[in-house]
């Protein structure tokens, strides 16, 4: 995060004003309205880079419904990157492509894309993630300060902590033990069997 980027508030405001067409359902298989690959390809050209190749476009097209939220988040992030601060610089296409294709999967698994538009904390999280992915920090913030704030907002880091807690591991052990108990294995009489 060596370079200074745009004002954070400018980016979060832009997210709050995401137009409806960027919130439409992405095309998945035979359903949906918006082709994420086309949106990203246009964006990359606006950022000064080449359009997506066919191979690159595959990362933004899917027939797997499990990718719905990820494609939605890509559309919201693409709207964010269309901010004139980025397009005017004409040098962020490569980092943007990398972030959009590989940097949003874990976040999309945890938080619905619309929350990055409607919820102030999640807007700030996405804006800071975007700047970080582009090697930038918010205007008028020190590097350490920006990193600390991003860590404290990070949904992905929070989930990692929850999953790694001793309580979760202990619970898994308890369930395995309970299923091995003699009384559990004896079960209870069933009037009808499957």
């Amino acid at each position, binding site marked *: 995060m060596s370079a200074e980027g745009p004002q954070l508030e400018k980016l979060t405001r832009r997210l709050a004003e995401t137009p409806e067409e960027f919130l439409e359902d992405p095309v*998945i*298989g035979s*359903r949906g309205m918006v082709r994420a690959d086309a949106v990203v390809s246009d964006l990359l050209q606006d950022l000064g880079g080449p359009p997506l190749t066919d191979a690159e476009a595959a990362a933004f097209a899917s*027939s*797997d*419904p*499990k990718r*719905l*939220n990820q494609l939605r988040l890509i559309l919201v992030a693409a709207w964010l990157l269309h901010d004139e601060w980025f397009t005017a610089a004409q040098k962020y296409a490569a980092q943007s492509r990398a972030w959009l294709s590989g940097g949003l999967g874990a976040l*999309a*698994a*945890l*938080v*619905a*894309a*619309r*929350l990055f538009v*409607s*919820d102030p904390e999640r807007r700030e999280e996405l804006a800071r993630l975007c700047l970080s992915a582009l090697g930038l920090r918010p205007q008028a913030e020190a590097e350490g300060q920006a990193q600390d704030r991003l860590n404290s907002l990070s*949904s992905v880091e929070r989930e990692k902590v929850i*999953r790694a807690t001793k309580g*979760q591991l202990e*619970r*898994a052990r*308890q*369930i*395995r033990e*309970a*299923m091995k*108990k003699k*009384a*559990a*294995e*004896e*079960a*209870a*009489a*069933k*009037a*009808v*069997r*499957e």
Partner: protein
Amino acid sequence: MIPLERLERNPLITEAGYCRLNRILQHPCAPRWNYVVGDRIESGDLSLVEEYRRRVREDRGPSEGIPPPALLDWVERLRERVPVLRQVLPEGFNLARDWAYVPTMDREDLALRIEQVVPVDEDLSRLIVYDTSGTTGHALRVPHHPRAMAQNQVLIEYALERHGVRPFFGPDTVACVNLGAQEANTVIFANVFTIWNQAGFAKVNLHPKDWGSTEHARAFFREIAPLFLTGDPVGFAELLSWEIPVRPAAILSTATALSEGLKNKLRASLGCPVVDWYSVTETGPIAYACPLGRGLHILPHDIFVEALDAEGHPVREGESGEIAVTGGHNPFVPLLRYRTGDWGRIERSPCPCGEVTPRILDFEGRDPVFFRSAEGSVVNAVDIGRALRRFPVVQHEVVQRADGSCEVALRGVQRLGLDLERVESALRELLGAGIVLSLRLDETLGERLRGRKVQPYRSERAE
């Protein structure tokens, strides 16, 4: 005086119930009992079962393409308590709008990640476990709760009632006998059910090794006179061939598809309704036969059933898809679009029989499959499933070729490894030492089928 160990298993058994139990157990012609089990119902369960009994009748309704609001709220609330739901439903996910995109669950979630499925704060002290029969291609251990089992009995009452049967339960009656006919060892026991007013119950196996003689079996049934019977088609076929003198008010047939021919024979011989019953260990009862023969009506009021394509989208109206279940009353296994591996078409239009819930039409369940041992005797697929269940097998596919040779594909639990020599030896015990048998590990078994279930048993022999 009721012994303590019986009270542990049947905490609410009465003196009259205990007498009934002993009359079954000590009958001079009883089968060779090999198991002891109770209903484990406690006093705190009774009001909840009664509430369920009321709601099964009052909360029934038609459903559209997505679950009703109460069920969506249930899923939303569970997200915070069930790790697997937290993983598949991002925070803020709009269930009503995006239901078609909600990821599905399947047997693998229960076989490999059960600790991710059980709610984090659910009291485990009354957890019990059921093994699946393995006839669906996975051997599974499913956590359950005694109260949920009693609630399933309420669903039996409802289905019987819809077929005009209202048994009067009491300690002077035997509510039901569950029939099987298996070569391999299976549990054989008697019990009394608290929620059926201490009425008796027996699970028996119609195989000669489990009785003194077939005449004993006839005498046993003649005297205990069960109000109704449950079981699978193989058991009912044996009931007829053993000429068991029984006059049940109804028969509930489960587990494998009951042919029209056998159904008609049973009706003619026993003079009672024969009701197809669709139930899966992981989900509990799902549907029962329409009294007018127009498919299978969804039975519990607390589940939502849909038919899905390979990608998890609901199929178009009128098309057949894999049956998936959301909801249920097993507190340890909350189901979210759980793929059953069975196929059918969901019909949501009103049924002339008067039942308001949707129907499953063109149901493709688990067809009965029989193998032949090297010596030519019949080997039930259920027995093969039981043999494989002793090993860490996630899915299996057993094929008997026309020449009698058998090919077995196994998908193991990766971290546990699988000793193929021991599996082969277990299968040879059933199929005979002389059988030509080949086994192979296939870690992608089922994945290539994109959601379509593995056909766990297949026989190419002409019978």
